[in-house]
């Protein structure tokens, strides 16, 4: 009997090729999108779970309130790890990471800039699952000046030779002996190091300074220990260790500091929660965001729902045509459940075809999807199994959902009615279908509005006056390699006709840039309540001019005034924070050591207009600039249409000044755009998926419209015999869809408004959700729907009326 069902179903599919294609293809597109997103979500949720002890590893993070500013940071003081091991029996092992920025690493003739180099305790190989390919985990990083390499990195420097025992030179200064080679760290890891240098090499790793938070610290707890209980013990330990240090450094007791409003709380972050739930001021890498996962999951569900709705709509629409078959079968002795089974087989076959095509589509689209999301998801390994594990229930669910309603409707009808075509009205499921189409329209509108708002915000960011000119600025990296010649290099480059001005400073308003957030005091008020946490930027006298920043009050630094060495320019936010209406002439005390024993006072000579040096997600914070050496980068402002010439000149000069050293540069506007990579990605993905959603919805609409026209063939014929024009018939057939679009808009608008307002709230500087966007989205959906529907309607209306009447 099953073969009979399958035979009928298959021949039905083949006979109605067009509808079957639309049905299966639409479903496949929806399911493929859903599968891709599920793979993305799976990858996001898999972060750091590959560590054997993942459940027992926690990172210590700190909540700090100082100088009226609250911050959550992922780094803690150097001695905390040792204190934890000493004080808490639950702690089995601890490891610290210390970031030191980029290094130029050289072996013989080969030299590269390495951005993924970290300093770590030797215990890193005990806490984390980093299998060694060569070398011994216990001794690899035990000595100062030792280093471990990833497999790929080892090959890069040493080829096929055994690197263990060989040396690498860091920043042309210190030699590190290779102690081990570890397997490349998987991409689903919240840290991805290529080189791990021994933390022993750094003096600060042994210092007992509790005032600096520079070390990422991970604890491996013993089995069965309670992290919450452990966390509850932190306050006592802070008091025990920080107390004496505060007294020694600041001359104040722990309680005095607390009563002044300062706060310091440590807490534990589960390793596996870091990637999606941690957005601290210091992180080892750009983390994901659980909200993005939710948004993606919602999109996946919506697209699948749209595709399933199509499927259901077409199945019910077509079931009217199959009512006769159902009737005959009943007359011939089929029982109701046999009929149910048959029509379910039918829709399961269709959804099975859909999912098979979907898997193919997903596999083909995967590289492109990876590019879009910046991921490296592979089908090899568990990927295929996962896809299959998702696909099977998906196909079953859609197949059953789509088949159940028409199957039940057909099977429960009386054969007499079915044979006499009385059922048509019953199976039509007009209400249900209208509801489902409205749903599709509404989802499409929400997605269109979402895409529009994201891009509008991106445009807003692009157009926003940032307080500096990011265009036509070329940033030379690694300028510290020039050492004392930096100034000479800059002056030489200024001779190039395309270069307008230049400045030597590692501090830039776009990444990569140095950052130095330090505590400042108004002169004569060294107390914690008067602290201002501010960015301390060392610049040269050409900086403000080259960056295109504006002086709001006072003046810029001047080369010819030696006294400016003791001057400072602050931004408007700093002026507000200090509480100065007229900052010029005021003095700021800069601490010169961590014990706050000695200070250097600087006089404010000017106020620079606030400029964005962080993402537009956060408000502009206080910032001060003074003359000082910071030779990591040299920025050149150049004339338009001189890009190639300036770049070539820069490279020639670099080869003369620093032969054999890596030449690296960046354009400031590009770096700025990268700041909003996540938004751009979200916008693009939303755009792509809303286009897909609309495509799938249109496919369904097309088929639906033709069914409706077919069903009304006789009516159309009669109306035409009575004198209706093509336009009138088209209008008649399209009118219903217009009504549905209007209802959909009523549902979609508030939803989209709410969702996008929430998203925008994540930006300190944001555009508004414009009413035009809503109108546009609805008009777009209306237009697409009308085009689709009228295509069918016109065809039906233009047919010869005699033909349509003869059919009956």
């Amino acid at each position, binding site marked *: 009997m099953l073969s*009979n069902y399958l*035979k009928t179903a298959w021949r*039905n599919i083949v006979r109605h090729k067009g509808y079957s294609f639309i049905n299966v293809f639409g479903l496949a597109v929806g399911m493929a999108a859903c599968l891709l997103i599920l793979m993305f979500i799976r990858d996001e949720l898999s972060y750091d779970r590959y560590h054997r002890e993942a459940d027992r590893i926690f990172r210590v993070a700190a909540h700090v309130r100082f100088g009226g500013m609250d911050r959550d940071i992922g780094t803690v003081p150097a001695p905390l790890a040792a204190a934890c091991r000493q004080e808490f029996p639950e702690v089995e092992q601890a490891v610290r990471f210390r970031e030191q920025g980029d290094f130029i690493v050289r072996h013989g003739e080969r030299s590269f800039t390495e951005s993924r180099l970290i300093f770590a305790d030797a215990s890193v190989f005990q806490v984390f699952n980093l299998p060694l390919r060569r070398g011994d985990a216990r001794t690899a990083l035990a000595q100062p000046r030792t280093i471990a390499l990833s497999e790929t990195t080892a090959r890069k420097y040493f080829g096929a030779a055994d690197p263990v025992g060989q040396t690498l030179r860091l920043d042309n200064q210190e030699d590190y002996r290779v102690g081990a080679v570890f397997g490349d760290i998987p991409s689903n890891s919240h840290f991805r190091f290529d080189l791990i240098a021994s933390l022993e090499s750094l003096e600060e790793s042994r210092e007992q300074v509790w005032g600096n938070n520079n070390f990422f610290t991970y604890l491996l707890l013993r089995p069965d220990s309670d992290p919450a209980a452990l966390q509850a013990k932190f306050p006592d330990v802070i008091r025990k260790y920080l107390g004496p240090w505060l007294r020694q450094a600041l001359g104040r007791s722990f309680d005095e500091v607390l009563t002044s409003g300062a706060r310091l709380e440590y807490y534990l972050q589960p390793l596996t929660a870091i990637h999606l739930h941690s957005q601290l001021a210091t992180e080892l890498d750009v983390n994901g965001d659980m909200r993005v996962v939710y948004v993606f999951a919602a999109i996946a569900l919506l697209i699948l729902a749209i595709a399933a709705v199509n499927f259901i709509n077409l199945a019910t629409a077509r079931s009217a045509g199959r009512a006769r078959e159902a009737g005959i079968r009943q007359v011939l002795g089929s*029982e109701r459940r046999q009929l149910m089974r048959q029509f379910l087989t039918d829709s399961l076959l269709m959804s099975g075809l859909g999912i098979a095509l979907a898997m193919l589509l997903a596999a083909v689209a995967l590289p492109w999807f990876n590019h879009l999301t910046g991921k490296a998801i592979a089908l090899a390994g568990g990927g295929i199994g996962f896809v299959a594990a998702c696909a099977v229930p998906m196909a079953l669910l859609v197949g059953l959902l789509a088949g159940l309603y028409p199957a039940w409707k057909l099977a429960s009808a009386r054969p007499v009615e079915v044979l006499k075509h009385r059922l048509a009205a019953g199976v039509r499921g007009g209400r249900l279908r209208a509801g489902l189409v409205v749903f599709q329209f509404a989802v499409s509108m929400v997605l269109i509005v979402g895409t529009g708002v994201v891009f509008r915000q991106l445009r807003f960011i692009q157009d926003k006056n940032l307080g500096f000119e990011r265009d036509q600025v070329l940033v030379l990296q690694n300028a510290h390699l020039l050492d004392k010649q930096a100034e000479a290099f800059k002056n030489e480059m200024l001779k190039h006709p395309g270069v307008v001005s230049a400045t030597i400073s590692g501090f830039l308003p776009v990444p990569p840039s140095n950052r130095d957030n330090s505590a400042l005091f108004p002169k004569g008020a060294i107390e914690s309540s008067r602290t201002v946490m501010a960015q301390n930027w060392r610049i040269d006298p050409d900086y403000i001019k080259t960056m295109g920043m504006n002086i709001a009050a006072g003046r810029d630094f001047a080369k010819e005034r030696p006294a400016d060495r003791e001057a400072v320019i602050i931004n408007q936010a700093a002026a507000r924070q200090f509480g100065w209406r007229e900052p010029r002439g005021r003095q700021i005390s800069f601490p010169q050591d961590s014990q706050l024993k000695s200070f250097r006072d600087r006089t404010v000579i000017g106020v620079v207009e606030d400029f964005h040096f962080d993402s537009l997600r956060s408000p502009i914070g206080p910032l001060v600039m003074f003359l000082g050496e910071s030779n990591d980068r040299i920025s050149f402002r150049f004339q338009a249409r001189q890009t190639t010439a300036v770049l070539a000149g820069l490279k020639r000069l670099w080869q003369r000044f620093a032969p054999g050293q890596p030449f690296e540069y960046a354009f400031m506007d590009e770096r700025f755009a990268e700041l909003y990579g996540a938004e751009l990605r979200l916008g693009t993905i939303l755009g792509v998926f809303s286009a897909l959603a609309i495509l799938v919805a249109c496919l369904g609409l097309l088929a639906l419209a033709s069914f409706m026209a077919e069903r009304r063939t006789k009516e159309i014929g009669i109306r035409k015999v009575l004198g209706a024009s093509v336009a009138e018939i088209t209008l008649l057939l399209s009118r219903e869809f217009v009504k549905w679009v209007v209802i959909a808009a009523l549902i979609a608008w508030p939803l989209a408004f709410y969702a996008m307002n929430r998203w925008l709230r994540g930006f300190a500087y944001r555009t508004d959700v414009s009413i035009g966007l809503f109108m546009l989205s609805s008009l777009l959906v209306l237009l697409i729907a009308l085009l689709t529907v009228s295509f069918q309607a016109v065809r039906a209306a233009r047919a010869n009326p005699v033909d349509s009447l003869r059919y009956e």
Partner: protein
Amino acid sequence: MIQTKNLKKIYTTEEVETSALNQINLSVQEGEFVAVMGPSGCGKSTLLNILGLLDNPSEGEYHFVGHEVSRYSERQRAHLRKANIGFVFQSFNLIDELTVFENIELPLLYLKVGGNERRKKVLEVMERMQLIPRKNHFPQQLSGGQQQRVAVARALVARPKLILADEPTGNLDSANGDEVMSLLSQLHGEGTTIVMVTHSPAYSEYAQRVVHLFDGHIVTENFNQKFHV
């Protein structure tokens, strides 16, 4: 075989009640060939549907092969139907997606007849109807007469006790109509009970008895002389 007592069928729409059958008392003996005649809308098809267990009467009794079936559920009726009744319709009602062979095979599938026996029975009936050359054709590839032959074959294949034919010649030209009628008459000769609705006085001559229906009532019953000689 068939006995009805005061059979009534009332169709109720939102506003009006229409009485399609009224006080129908009819009995059909095993082996009889009965023709039902009457103008459009007199209730012929309704009567046939009830007799064929496709529908329930609103009132009255209906005894079919010894069962009182007027209150049977669709499930019970389906059960009785598939074992005992074969249908032939004016519009053939073949399934377009199935071949001639598969269409004829269908009743046996629902009766859960085994594969080999099914094949044997289908081929047997096909041979008899001269349908073997058309075995793998689809209904759309056949002429009207051929399609009705397939429908008759399908009605026969399960060897039902009763064949109900609803204007079996209505969509056919006279040559094909004659052919179908001689087929039915042949079946009748072999002992099959047949109830047939027809508009054609000529074809009603094939029946032993003609029942005339008017406005839901049986108005006359004529016995065909040639069978009673």
